[in-house]
């Protein structure tokens, strides 16, 4: 087990402190992306059979990580992870993730509260970034999520985010709502 390419990829994933895409792996190993993907598959299979480590697809690439069930032991060795995000920060990050690029005003319209401090925190932690200016009066800053955002939440791509939907309870009453609102003269379709 362990073709040479698999072994080299294993080494690369081990030494890299960040996710490596199949393309990057192909470039470094001077092989075709197809071969890399095949080797990755074999490697992941090997890691899934009794290894304490795993190779996960995260933030647009592949990265070696410890398996979650060993977190308590690893946590005893290492300092625990940085503080988790506060609820406002989580909410704000979520809104940006789904609406990006969007302005502070867009975020505040949803949250109903000022989001200055929270945006600053997210920027400082590198989870969001300045993605240019909106061509509207005042030219407000547009925010977008970063690769670190994906990494922080263990997502491979933005499309991994679950579709933004109504809660099931609400969904069941969606028709009722539509009817009710239509009766009130409001279109039931919000913007998602």
């Amino acid at each position, binding site marked *: 087990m362990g073709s040479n390419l698999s072994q080299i990829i294993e080494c690369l994933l*081990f*030494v*890299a*402190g*960040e996710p490596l895409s199949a393309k990057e792996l192909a470039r470094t190993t001077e092989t075709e992306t197809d071969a890399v993907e095949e080797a990755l598959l074999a490697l992941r299979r090997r890691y899934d059979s009794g290894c304490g480590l*795993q190779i*996960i697809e995260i933030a647009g690439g592949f*990265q*070696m*990580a*410890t*398996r*979650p*069930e060993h*977190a308590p032991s*690893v946590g005893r060795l*290492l300092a625990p*992870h940085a503080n*988790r*995000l506060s*609820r*406002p920060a*989580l*909410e704000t*990050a*979520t*809104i940006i*993730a*789904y609406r990006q690029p969007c302005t502070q005003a867009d975020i505040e319209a*949803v*949250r*109903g*509260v*000022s989001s200055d401090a929270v945006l600053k925190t997210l920027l400082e932690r590198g989870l969001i970034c300045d993605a240019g200016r909106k061509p509207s009066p005042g030219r407000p800053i547009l925010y977008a999520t970063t690769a670190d955002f994906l*990494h*922080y*939440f*263990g*997502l491979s791509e933005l499309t991994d*985010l*679950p579709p*933004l*939907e*109504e*809660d099931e309870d*609400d969904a069941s*009453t969606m028709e*009722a*709502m539509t009817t*009710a*609102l239509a*009766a*009130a*003269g*409001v279109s039931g379709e*919000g913007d*998602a």
Partner: protein
Amino acid sequence: MLAAPPTVRLETFEGPLDLLLHLVRVGQMDIFDLPIARLCDQYIAHLSAMESLDLSVAGEFLVMAATLLEIKSRLLLPAPPREETGENDDGSDALDPRAELVERLLEYGKYQRMAELLKGAEGDRGRMFFRDTAEIRDYVLPPRFGEMSADDLLRTLQRLLASVGAGERAVTSVRRQKITLRMKMREVLLRAEAAGADEGVTLEELLPAPPFALLEVVLLFLALLELLKVGSILVAQTQFCGEMRVFFVPEAERAALVDERTEEGLTIAGGVDGE
């Protein structure tokens, strides 16, 4: 039911919408047919509880209270005739005063749920550990083929030759041709004599300055041995592996020295004798 909510929860509301959604959920209100009067009362009760606890109530909460009161009052009024709604959008039925609030609550609720999901993802991800990028020091990669051109070579040689200029000739010619054993012997003898019979010259001083050709060092040793043999010099060492000094022996004393072969101070000469 008039909720007297647990005070501990008060500070956790992130904004008026958060508080409203909480009230809707806890009170199991139908969000699509909001009992505005009840919601409004509970909301204002919360605000006063917050104030009584000296929690600073943000402006947004107060604005929302005003909005709720306004909706409540509008619901109490009979629906205005269609003409009086003026420029109101589609000109169909009058707008339910609650509609905008409901929409905002629904929208905010969606993101809240997603934020909950992401919180779970954050937790899952938090149980995985990664490594920092490995540091590599002093690792030299094997060459990549065809990476440099012959021009690089040429340019390098040009630069080298230009900077060395005539210097190389002098150095190489000395090393390759001009050093002979006889020359070296002469040099050693002269230097030992110049140093004086008492002082002597150290072996280190006699060694050529680096970078030196191996040949030159070999010649130095051969010269020393040869001079010792004929008794022109004396080599002394005060301690084992210590500094070696080379002393000039005046011509008058040479024959005697060669004959006597005194043990003292002839460490090197002793080795030669064996030959």
